[in-house]
């Protein structure tokens, strides 16, 4: 019961505060999922993100993994629902007021402050993920190659994840 409430609260909170899209949520969830509640080890969380990336649809589908590990099938449904609900409701309510909201300078200024902070939060989560993922020289090199492939050559991220898994299976 406690776990259920914690799941609902955690995923709802992240769903309501992760401005900027799916990857932001992944970065936000890490704090609670790994550190606060220990539903997943950091290793498992990283693997869950990779699985979320190779499945179609939004990356926050990673929530299904977390929910399942914490509380089985019910947990996966609850986690996914709770993380989607805030933006679902906000979209429709704000959508009804769209014109006014777009012009409000206070809201614009708020978002202008939030957007660099979100980048900082992603970078921070990236650092802690890197600390446990990049354990030796080959893993560092592989990450660099992946990054180069995505940024420089615009390789599709699904392809990068699959290729990295195969390279890992053969060489690491």
């Amino acid at each position, binding site marked *: 019961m406690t776990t259920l409430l914690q799941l609902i609260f955690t995923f709802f909170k992240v769903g309501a505060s992760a401005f900027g899209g799916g990857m932001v949520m992944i970065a936000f969830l890490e704090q609670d999922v790994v550190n606060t509640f220990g539903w997943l080890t950091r290793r498992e969380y990283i693997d869950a993100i990779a699985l979320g990336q190779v499945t179609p649809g939004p990356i926050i589908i990673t929530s299904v993994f977390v929910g399942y590990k914490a509380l089985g099938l019910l947990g996966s449904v609850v986690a996914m629902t709770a993380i989607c609900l805030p933006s*679902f409701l906000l979209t429709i309510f704000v959508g009804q007021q769209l014109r006014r*909201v777009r012009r409000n300078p206070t809201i614009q200024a708020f978002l202008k*402050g939030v957007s660099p902070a979100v980048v900082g939060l992603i970078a921070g989560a990236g650092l802690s993920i890197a600390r446990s993922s990049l354990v030796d020289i080959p893993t560092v090199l592989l990450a660099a190659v992946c990054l180069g492939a995505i940024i420089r050559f615009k390789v599709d991220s699904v392809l990068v994840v699959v290729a990295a898994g195969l390279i890992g299976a053969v060489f690491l």
Partner: protein
Amino acid sequence: MRERVEEAQAAGAAMATPTLWQLALVFCKVGGTGFGGAMPMLAMIQSEVVAKRHWVNQDLFGEAVLLGQVLPGPVAIDAAAYIGYRLRGWPGAIVGTVAFILPSFLLMLALTVLYLQYGQLPQLAGALKGLGSAVVALVAMAAYRMGKPAVKDKRSLVILLGAMAALLLQVNIVLIIALAGLVGIGLYRSQLAALPQDAGQAGKGARS
């Protein structure tokens, strides 16, 4: 049905309104085949509901994307919810969103069960190590791609570094976001209020 839609277009009549079932099918298709993040998925939604079926016009689609970008949460889910809502009210919003999520939900559930069963096998250790490297690259890329439009001056760089330090010190994330927004109001509000409305909106369009 399709003939009628085409006739209506030929006559320049209003947009066609889909049934809930048609709505479910289209969003299910996008959710089940949309790889590669938010932008490719938005492009698929656009081609299905605007270009191919003429359920909504480009303006309304643009509103959906704007909402998705400004509000928390995944852009594509926000877009599915908003388009569903504008087409068929609350039932449309629910059906559109659930249909969009369902395929990847089921697939992810299956992968999770398999992982928890077999993830500890030594044969998989190398593959998982490789996946870990790829995830680092994905997160770094997300920060880089969002950082370019978000960091325009020294002040925003300070906000970025402050937020990052706060996260590493385990400060609550909602608190970090709220503080950053208040700092933004302090720094930019008077400046934005002084701008003519159109210029303020142009600035927002650059947010990724």
